[in-house]
C-alpha cells in the first residue's frame, strides 16, 4: 500500500498538480461570476486577484496596442507582471494554466490508450506557430482588431466556462478531434500563437528540466509523454538542461523517468 502511494507520487505528482491548478483556476473564475467570489474574477484574458491585482494576457495586450487601442496603464502593468512570470517560468502557461491543454492532453491520452500509430493526415511544421504569431501581429495592425482574441480557443474555453459557451463547444470539440485523428499534438504543438509567444520569451527562463546522461537507459518513456519531443534532443546524448524554447515545463518526463536521468532544476540553462 505504502509503496503504491509512493509509486503514484513518483509518477504523477506534477501531472496531478497541473490538473489541480488548471481546474482550480477554472473553478475560481467560474465561482467569481456564479457566486460573486472575489478571489479571482474575469477570465484568462484579464483578471483580478482579490479585487486588487490586475493580471493581463501579454499577447492580448500586444494585439490591442497594435490595433491602436489606448490601453490603460492598469492592463499594461498586469501584462508586464505575466510577461515577467513566464520569462522566469518558461512556457509553463501552456501546461499548468491553459484549459485547452486539458482537451489536447485528453486527445493525446486517447491516442495512446487506443494505440493509434497512424501517420498524421497532414504534415504541419512545428514552426508554423511562429508564422501564425506573425500573422497575429500583421492582422491586428491591418484590421485594428485583436485578431487572435476573436478565434482563440483558450479565450473561448476560459471565457465560455465563466460566461456561457454559446457555440464555442463545437470549436473546442473540433480541436479535440483534430488532435486525435489528424495531427498528433496538432493545436498546442504546431499552431497556437500564444504558445509560440511564450516560447519566444522563455529563452532566459530559470526553471528547466535537467538531464543526467549517465543514468539514462534510452528507454524512450520521456519521448512518449512529451508534447514537444524535439526539446528532448539532448536525452541520452549529453548532460545539460532542456534549452529549446518550446519546452512547456510540464515535468511529465521527469516523473515518468524510472532511471533518475531527468530532474526539475532551477537556474540558468547549460549544456555539456
Amino acid at each position, binding site marked *: 500500500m505504502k509503496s503504491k502511494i509512493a509509486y503514484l507520487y513518483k509518477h504523477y505528482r506534477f501531472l496531478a498538480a497541473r490538473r489541480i491548478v488548471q481546474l482550480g483556476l477554472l473553478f475560481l473564475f467560474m465561482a*467569481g*461570476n456564479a457566486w*460573486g467570489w472575489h478571489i479571482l*474574477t*474575469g*477570465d484568462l*484574458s*484579464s*483578471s*483580478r486577484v482579490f479585487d486588487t491585482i*490586475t493580471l*493581463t*494576457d501579454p499577447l*492580448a*495586450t500586444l494585439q*490591442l496596442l497594435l*490595433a*491602436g*487601442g*489606448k*490601453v*490603460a496603464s*492598469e*492592463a499594461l502593468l*498586469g501584462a508586464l507582471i505575466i510577461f515577467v512570470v513566464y520569462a522566469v517560468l518558461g512556457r509553463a502557461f501552456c501546461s499548468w494554466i491553459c484549459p485547452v491543454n486539458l482537451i489536447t492532453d485528453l486527445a493525446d491520452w486517447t491516442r495512446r490508450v487506443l494505440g493509434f500509430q497512424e501517420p498524421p493526415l497532414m504534415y504541419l*511544421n512545428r514552426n*508554423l506557430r511562429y*508564422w*501564425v504569431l*506573425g*500573422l497575429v501581429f*500583421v*492582422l491586428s495592425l*491591418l*484590421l*485594428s*482588431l*485583436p*485578431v487572435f*482574441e*476573436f*478565434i482563440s480557443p483558450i*479565450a*473561448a474555453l476560459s*471565457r*465560455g466556462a*465563466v*460566461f*456561457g*459557451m*454559446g*457555440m*464555442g463547444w*463545437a*470549436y473546442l470539440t473540433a480541436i479535440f478531434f483534430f488532435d486525435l485523428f489528424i495531427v498528433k499534438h496538432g493545436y498546442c504543438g504546431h499552431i497556437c500563437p500564444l504558445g509560440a509567444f511564450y516560447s519566444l520569451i522563455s529563452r532566459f527562463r530559470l526553471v528547466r528540466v535537467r538531464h543526467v546522461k549517465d543514468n539514462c537507459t534510452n528507454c524512450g518513456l520521456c519521448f512518449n509523454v512529451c508534447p514537444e519531443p524535439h526539446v528532448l534532443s539532448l536525452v541520452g546524448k549529453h548532460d545539460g538542461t532542456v534549452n529549446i524554447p518550446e519546452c512547456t515545463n510540464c515535468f511529465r518526463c521527469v516523473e515518468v523517468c524510472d532511471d533518475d536521468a531527468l530532474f526539475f532544476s532551477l537556474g540558468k540553462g547549460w549544456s555539456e
Partner: protein
Amino acid sequence: MGKIDKTRRRMIFRTLQGATLVAVGGTFWAGFVKENAQADLVLRPPGALPEKDFLATCIHCGLCVEACPYDTLRLGAYGENVPVGTPYFIPRDVPCYLCEDIPCTAACPTGALDLLSLTDEEGELDVSKSRMGVAVIDYNNCIANRGLRCDACVRACPYIEKAIFVDTRRNPRTGKHAMLVPVVDADYCTGCGLCEKACVTDKPTIFVLPRDVALGSTGLHYELPPPPNFNEEAPSDEI
C-alpha cells in the same frame, strides 16, 4: 546551359509553400474576424469608447459583466451575432439601471469603458452622461399615438421630462380628446432601455438603437439655428 541549383529551388519552393499556407489561412481568419466584429446593432455598457476604438481596446475579460449587479450585461459567445467576448445588453430582457457608482465602467482594466467620459467637472461620477444608444419610437404602433392613454415609457425613464416627455396633441379622430404622445430628446437619452423594458406592446414600440444607427447628421454646410428646445415647458430643476 548551367547546372540548376536544386537545393536553392527546393528552398524557394518550401518558402512559397509556407507563405501560401499563411496567406490562405490569414485570408479566412481576417474574413471571419472582420465579419464577427461587424455589429451595428449591439448596445455597449456605459462609458464605452466609440465602437471602432472599443473593439481595439476591449480585451474580452468580462470584468464589467461580473460587476453588473443586475445581470444586465452579457459577454458575447460564438453564435450570438455579437463580436465574440465583448460585453453587450438587450434592454427588453434586462435594461441598464444606471447605477450611480457605475461599477461596470469602473471595473474595466483596459479603458475600453472610459470612466473619465462619465465624470463631471467636479470629478464626480455622473451616469447621466452615458450614451449607450438612443430610444426610438415607432409611432405607427405606439398606442399613445393612436389615442390610448399610455405613458409607461415616460414613467419608466430615469430622466423623465428630459429624455422622454409627453407632447399633448389634439386627437383629430374624436376631435375632443387629447393624445399624450411620448417624444424622445436624443440630447438627454442615455439609451438605458428602461422605456423599452416598460413598453406594454407585444413587441416594443420604443426601443434603443446605437446612436450611430439611429441619429442622422446635418453635415457642415448647413447654418442651422440651435436645436428646438423640446423641454421648454418642463421644469428645469427636476432630475
